[in-house]
């Protein structure tokens, strides 16, 4: 049971992120909501690669025969983090521009495009 705890935390993070996206009205908070989901998914990936008692996957430092955690999920997580940085920066930049044009960050008022 205790081994599943990281996965439970991931799912809680994702659910919190979704709740933020649905319930919060500030555009910056919406970006934070996307960030929460990102972190949940990244944590999920890293947790998947963990091997009980494993050491970091660096061959030059490893004693022979020691179990290593899986390196692939870590590479995936890193890529996902990089993409997350780009996404977040882009969304924040658009939020700044929206604030300049409309003077508000309230999602209920940023609805020029509707219907």
């Amino acid at each position: 049971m205790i081994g599943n705890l990281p996965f439970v935390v991931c799912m809680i993070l994702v659910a919190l992120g979704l709740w933020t996206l649905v319930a919060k009205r500030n555009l910056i908070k919406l970006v934070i909501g996307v960030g929460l989901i990102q972190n949940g998914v990244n944590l999920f990936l890293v947790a998947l690669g963990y091997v009980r008692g494993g050491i970091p996957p660096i061959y030059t430092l490893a004693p022979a025969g020691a179990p290593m955690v899986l390196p692939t999920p870590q590479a995936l997580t890193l890529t996902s983090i990089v993409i997350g940085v780009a996404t977040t920066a882009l969304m924040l930049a658009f939020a700044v521009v929206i604030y300049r044009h409309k003077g508000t960050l309230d999602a209920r008022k940023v609805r020029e495009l509707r219907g």
Partner: protein
Amino acid sequence: MRPEESIQLITGQGYWTPLLWMAAALGTLLLAFLFWSRGRRGYKRGTEQDLPFVSGEKVENPRLAATHLYWGFAEALRPVLRRLGAWHSGVVNDYAAWFVVILAVIFLLIMV
């Protein structure tokens, strides 16, 4: 592939050939031209016979914008349009909420 096959479209229930359709369309056009050519020719250019007929009124600028067209059609659809327009509310929270709803529906459909 034979040349007629490259034009035909076999759908399993029949086939579709643009050439046949073109022949039919040409015949119809011919018929239309026949009717048109039998019409009255007494119409004079540059007189008020030339003006567009807008409900018998004299109008300064007879331009019809696209928003004027199909007025009755749009009017009949108005209740639907109003409801659909409200659905596309423009609030990004609603869009995210619909994603959550569809996520739940898909999970129900696939897991149960």
